């Protein structure tokens, strides 16, 4: 359903070009769930936004293709792309407080969405459908006439999810959907998302810096570091058998309330400067197993078996020399 092939995204800035996403490839089947995990600057949001082609300018896709139901959207004219957004792919943003138009009533958001994509729908029918969706979200239909500021953050995120599923898309991309929310609300929102996804058979890409919720909610996980996929595996496999030193380090720095005597450790060093990323393996300056080779050659992303891909010389010897 979704196929991404060697996707590369650049952001030209005054200080030089930032390669935010580099050579990312993966695929996603119907009603599968994929987690994109990474820290600030890993390129996870850029990757998410490129799937609906809304990378903020001057960022642009310089290489690769993204196929949604076989159609390569990288080359799609904007008019066709616009129709795809909302209809086939829905996007849910991080901050529910700012993702609704403050001067528009909630109901009007829905009606506008429906009538943009299905111009022949009558206003009454659109309102009917809105009520139905609000019902699914646990929001009283009469609140349709309220403005966004009259809702709490959790409620607004529900509304965003509702807007996302109204047109029954095949794919929902949720970019840090619960980062701005409290844990109890977070759990409820993630449950809602999961239930709706099952009910409508949608695929889900969950983007988060919080590996806990990704491990908990996703079938497969991509770990991103400095725009690169460093590891790609099923969550069970990743949890039991993390191979890339970055993934290992990340797992060792998350506290788990179910463990009683946990020892956490940090990954040494600082996040990479994306204007001047380290040569070879991007993680090598912070890696405790780094060898000379790691700074000279860039390892390839190789399947180590079990559909478990790793980009590290610890897992395989293949790589490309850098100048």
């Amino acid at each position, binding site marked *: 359903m979704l196929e991404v092939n060697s996707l590369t995204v650049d952001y030209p800035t005054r200080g030089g070009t930032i390669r935010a996403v580099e050579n990312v490839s993966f695929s996603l089947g119907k009603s599968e769930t994929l987690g994109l995990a990474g820290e600030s600057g890993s390129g996870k949001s850029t990757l998410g936004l490129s799937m609906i082609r809304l990378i903020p300018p001057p960022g642009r896709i310089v290489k690769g293709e993204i196929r949604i139901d076989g159609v390569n959207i990288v080359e799609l004219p904007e008019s066709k792309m616009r129709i795809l957004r909302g209809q086939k792919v829905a996007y849910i943003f991080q901050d529910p407080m700012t993702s609704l*138009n403050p001067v528009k009533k909630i109901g009007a958001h829905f009606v506008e969405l429906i009538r943009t994509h299905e111009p022949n729908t009558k206003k009454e029918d659109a309102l009917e459908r809105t009520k139905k969706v609000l019902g699914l979200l646990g929001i009283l239909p009469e609140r349709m006439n309220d403005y966004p500021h009259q809702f709490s953050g959790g409620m607004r995120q529900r509304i965003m999810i509702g807007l996302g599923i109204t047109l029954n898309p095949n794919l929902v991309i949720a970019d840090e959907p619960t980062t701005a929310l409290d844990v109890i609300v977070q759990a409820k929102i993630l449950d809602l998302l999961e239930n709706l996804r099952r009910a409508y058979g949608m695929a889900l890409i969950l983007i988060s810096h919080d590996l806990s919720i990704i491990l908990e909610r996703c079938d497969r996980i991509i770990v991103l570091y400095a725009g690169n996929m460093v590891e790609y595996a099923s969550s069970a496999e990743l949890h039991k058998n993390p191979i890339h030193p970055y993934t290992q380090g990340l797992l060792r720095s998350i506290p788990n309330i179910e463990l009683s005597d946990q020892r956490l450790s940090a990954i040494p060093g600082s996040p990479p400067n994306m204007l001047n990323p380290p040569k070879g393996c991007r993680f090598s300056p912070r890696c405790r197993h780094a060898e000379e080779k790691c700074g000279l050659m860039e390892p390839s992303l190789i399947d180590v078996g079990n559909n478990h891909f790793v980009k590290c010389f610890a897992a395989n010897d293949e790589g490309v020399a850098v100048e």
Partner: protein
Amino acid sequence: MGLRTYIITRIILTIPTLLLLLTAVFLIMRVLPGDPVALHFEKKATPETMEALRHILGLDKPLWQQYLDYVWGVIDIGYMVEHGYPNLGKSMQVTTEDVGGQIFSAFPATLELAIYAIIIAVVIGVLLGVASSKKYNSVPDHIIRGFGIITYAVPIFFLGIILQLIFGVYLRWLPTGLRIAPTVEPPASITGLYTIDSLLEGNLYKFIESVKALLLPSFTLGIILSGVFVRLTRTNMLETLRLEFVTAARARGLKESTVTYRYALRNAFLPVLTMMGLQFALLLGGAVLTETTFSWPGLGRYIVTRINFRDYTAIQGAVVMFGLFVTLVSLVVDILYAYLDPRIRL
């Protein structure tokens, strides 16, 4: 708080502002110079003549009483109903004439000029501002920004003179002064606005004549002011276009025009609207110069003429009138804002 309560409280809160305004004008005009009468005569009159004028104008009373007389004059509704204008005292130059009457007959000219100028300024400003923000950091953006900056730096009367020179002197397309050609009888005064009065009269010829007379002054003022609106709209659009709800709207596949106008502009316009009250003050300042340039018989020209006569009571009256006008406009703008922004009504 409902919209109606908001409006009522907002109106009530205008009262202290008005009092403050009257006091400030009084301080500047009567207290600051010491003796306006002496200034009026430039020391070329006998003490007796000066004393006589002081007596007629009531300037021989103690300062606090002058103050009370003056404030009472402005708010005396009875006087206003009887004469059709507030009591702003007598003119120093011609002591039989009421300043209020003179000001009220000059005011519609300024009002008409201001209305058309602000429409021109807002239309040009918002359209260019939006275009500029959509093409951020590209050549069109730089050109529009340049336009905004240059209009800010051009003295308004310089632009007026240049336009007079081109369209009036060389091309002879448009009149270079007055509200309507001297050969044409002005329309009967209903609103005092010639364009509207002539339409009410059903006289198309007079309408066209008055529009022709309005074109140059209102464009002069409008263009100069549009720069401010370009800058304001551009900055606010740039900030709004970066907000998440704009990206979210695009992500739902809404049309770019919907995103630009109903999402971004609708929100970016709110701060522009708040600024409009303040810009109106700027506009009135510009109107003084525009009226002088185009011999436009409005309040601004009135004040300038009176300065030449050193007619301080008249100047004071005109300044008060400008103040009242601005206060009224900012009241309207605030109410409009409350109407447009649902977050105000809690």
